[in-house]
């Protein structure tokens, strides 16, 4: 970022906190960027001529006579087709030794799409994973997070989903990514030969946490360029949104805001919604689909971060270790894709809806049977059949290592129904039973 002529330089700071500095300056605009002692900062508060700036890297070592230079514009990204295949940091600067991007300069965190101009999401995104395709079908233009404990392989599953999905661009927004995971993503994308359709914005754990706040907006500004200007289908991966929210918490805390639930800022819902609501199906065919990761603390979804996320996103995919089979599965009870009804039975087979519901209901009966078993009660014949069914259902359909077509998933489910249950026990509409039942 070069210095322009006639820019005023300020050298007298009035106050310094852990994350902010204040100084007197005139003609400064809200949200504007500045450089303080060589570090990037943003205007967050104006009171008369007293300007408060948030320093992304933190204020360690900043002297009261530090040089402050205002840019006159909010954070921006240069957009063009050259973005494809490149890696950037939170400020949109290349970190892959490639040249700087030439292109139109766009402010990040731009306005929302007029809801009336949106189109209803309608294109199924197959992943081959039955826990997703069968029970929680994804649709283009959807926003959905993985809810996972930190020890689960969420980044691997997400990379797998991204590479199998039929999209034009994949944009990775990595927040607080460990260096190992960053290299993992890089390697997986390279091995798949898909690097030319992938754009990455990465903040690793080695970098200051507050910088993360820019990552989603950067990634989505790039996504909007390809989806709106180029009518492309874009998939945005955001990992890990819990670390993003933690960064929000740090900032609001340092600005003396009154915390609400779980010491999160009261505006957490709006802050997260601003990001997730960028997912859209546009009238001219372009779309932005967001798949995110929200890590949980010991499966607790009542914490403010997963809770607010759940109210914003169109469902959630809940990863869980199934101790009966030793596999990581997509939990059919806690997972949900709100948009699945738009494609189920329309772009998939007519029996999809009933098969999906019945399979899950029988799995719930199995978990009741398991509770009975654990409490030391005798199991009925039905209970025993449910338990056997649950094991096979979990291994052959729920596990994340499954990779089959949706028709195969449905056939597998019918096979399991026929193997363990009577027609009446499934309660499926008779016309469908007659057509698909497998003895």
């Amino acid at each position, binding site marked *: 970022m070069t210095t322009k002529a006639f820019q005023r330089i300020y050298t007298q700071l009035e106050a310094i906190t852990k994350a902010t500095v204040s100084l007197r300056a005139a003609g400064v605009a809200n949200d504007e960027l500045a450089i303080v002692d060589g570090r990037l900062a943003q205007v967050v*508060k104006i009171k008369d001529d007293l300007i408060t700036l948030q320093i992304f890297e933190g204020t360690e070592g900043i002297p009261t006579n530090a040089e402050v230079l205002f840019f006159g514009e909010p954070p921006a990204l240069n957009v063009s087709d050259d973005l494809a295949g490149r890696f950037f940091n939170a400020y949109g600067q290349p970190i892959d030794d490639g040249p700087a991007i030439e292109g139109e300069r766009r402010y990040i965190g731009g306005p929302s799409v007029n809801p009336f101009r949106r189109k209803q999401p309608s294109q199924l995104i197959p992943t081959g994973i039955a826990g997703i395709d069968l029970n929680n079908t994804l649709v283009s233009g959807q926003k959905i997070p993985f809810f996972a404990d930190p020890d689960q392989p969420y980044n691997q599953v997400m990379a797998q989903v991204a590479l199998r999905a039929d999209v034009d661009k994949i944009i990775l927004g990595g927040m607080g990514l460990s260096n190992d995971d960053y290299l993992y993503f890089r390697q997986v994308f390279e091995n798949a030969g898909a690097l030319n359709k992938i754009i990455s914005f990465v903040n690793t754990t080695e970098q200051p946490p507050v910088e993360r706040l820019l990552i989603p907006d950067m990634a989505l500004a790039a996504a909007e360029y390809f989806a709106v200007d180029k009518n492309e289908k874009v998939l945005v991966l955001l990992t890990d949104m819990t670390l993003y929210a933690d960064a929000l918490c740090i900032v609001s805390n340092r600005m003396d805001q009154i*915390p609400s639930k779980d010491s999160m800022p009261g*505006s957490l819902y709006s802050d997260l919604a601003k990001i997730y609501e960028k997912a859209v199906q546009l009238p001219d065919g372009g779309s932005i689909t967001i798949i995110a990761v929200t890590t949980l603390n010991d499966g607790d979804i009542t914490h403010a971060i997963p809770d*607010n996320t759940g109210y914003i996103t169109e469902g959630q995919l809940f990863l869980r270790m199934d101790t009966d089979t030793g596999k990581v599965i997509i939990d059919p009870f806690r997972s949900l894709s709100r948009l699945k009804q738009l494609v189920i039975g329309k772009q998939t087979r007519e029996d999809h809806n009933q098969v999906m519901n019945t399979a899950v209901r029988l799995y719930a009966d199995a978990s009741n049977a398991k509770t*009975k078993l654990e409490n030391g009660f005798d199991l009925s014949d*039905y209970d025993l059949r449910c338990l056997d069914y649950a094991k096979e259902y979990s291994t052959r359909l729920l596990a994340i290592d499954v990779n089959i077509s949706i028709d195969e998933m449905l056939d597998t489910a019918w096979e399991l129904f026929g193997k363990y249950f009577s027609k009446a026990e499934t309660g499926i509409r008779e016309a469908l039973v007659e057509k698909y039942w497998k003895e």
Partner: protein
Amino acid sequence: MKSTGIVTGIISNLVTVEVNGHVAQNEICYIDLGGTKLMAEVIKISGKNAFVQVYESTRGLKQGDKVEFAGHMLEATLGPGLLSSSFDGLQNNLETMEDIFLKRGEYTKPLDHDKQWHFTPSAKPGDKVFAADWLGEVMEGWLPHKIMVPFSFDGKFTIKSIAPEGDYRIDDTIAVLTDSEGEEHKVTMVQKWPVKVAISGDIEKPRPYRVMETGVRCMDTLNPIAEGGTGFIPGPFGCGKTVLQHAIARQGDAEVIVMAACGERANEVVEIFTDFPKLIDPHTGRKLMERTTIVCNTSNMPVAAREASVYTAMTICEYYRAMGMKVLLLADSTSRWAQALREMSNRMEELPGADAFPVDITAIISNFYARAGIVHLRNGETGSVTFIGTVSPAGGNLKEPVTEATKKAARCFYALSQARADMKRYPAVDPIDSYSKYLEYPEVIGFLSERVGKDWVEKVNRTKNIIRRGKEVADQINILGDDGVPMSYHELYWKSELIDFAILQQDAFDPIDSLTSMERQEYMLTLLLDVCDTHIEFENFEECGNFYKELINILRQMNYSEFKSEQFNRYLEQLNNKLKK
């Protein structure tokens, strides 16, 4: 002279303005940002400083930017053309905005000012009229849209002249009224009203006495909502709040439906935009969109306008109520509105109440719910606004300020349960926790025994008891084991499951099952109670379970069949044969 001012401070969307002149609480002002006017509302005044919440992003705003005050509060524009329209929270017409993106400072007119409406007068010169009295009507699609004496007119007026039948634009004068002082006032077809003030003009607001049918069994049968009543649906995410609300919007027995999408997902509104112009209103056979108005301020739209959106929607409802219409307002979700209040209260550094919400949250919510109701108009007609709001409790915990405040204000409570949703028992309305206070109203009990059947409420209470007993014995069975309880416990448990599967659970995506007429609900409940009254001897509990599972299967097939069709009767025969054995 309107006051002006300059910007002195900015924290996010809270802006301090130094005012030159007088300013009112809740007055609207416009901040000039390089030619773009940003709308804002005064929320606090201290000395020369007015604190305003800006309805837009304040990016790029500077100290010293100019502010112009409008001299009025946030107003809704009321007139023909509201029906079937889509507005944002500030009543900008979303359909007439050209761009894909919402441009900051772009405000569009709510109504079409060039369209000609065919006006037929119903009053005549010399008539004495008061505010909200009808002067005539225009046909707004199918709806006879009354042109009224503006709500803001105070006292008695005499009609001096009224326009003859013919085509007029909304701004044309259609009547001239003389007040008691002899001064003349022109009346057009459009009027303005401050959204935060309830529209009066009705003379009597009786207790609700009729039931509003929704076709959703767990509501209509077990806990009906009254026409002009209030209800709310709290539930953790993923429990089907929105699916339930959309079902009510599609099937509710109302003439006008206003959907306020407040701080929720944009794709849910898109679903309405996409489906409602195609779907058929089951009561009239017209397209659903012909009776629906949408006010949406989705979660990514400016936070401050969320609060405005629910008030704008309510004002539109009250306007149609004054025409003698049966109006239903659905707001999803009132928690987001409360959160918007919390964000502002926080920025103003007010002392927080529970969970950092402002302390007056209970009063604000009660005031809002109180605007619903059935009214008898001065001309003897009846109009009503029924209000159902959803609440999104943090962490699914119903002991949080917004749920508790709403519980004090609303008379029907439809608690969505995580446990039921996990078992995919939809709609996940908890049959034990939920209630409808209207079932205790003698007027409503009388209405139901006439409309549905003699002793209906008694039947409903018996049903609830079966469910309650079923829950109790299920707990016992879980503690003592299948063998540890008497046979009768299994029977009680399975009878409650019968009610659960055949009445409570309903497939919102099945064309037949999703909408159940009151006749059919009466028929099925009576049938089920008869089944529950039949005592059957079983050898062991497994036989008992299997028997009732088969009954459940038959009853579900019945629910999927057209009422009293050949198929339906066949299943009924199967059921009777089973019971005879």
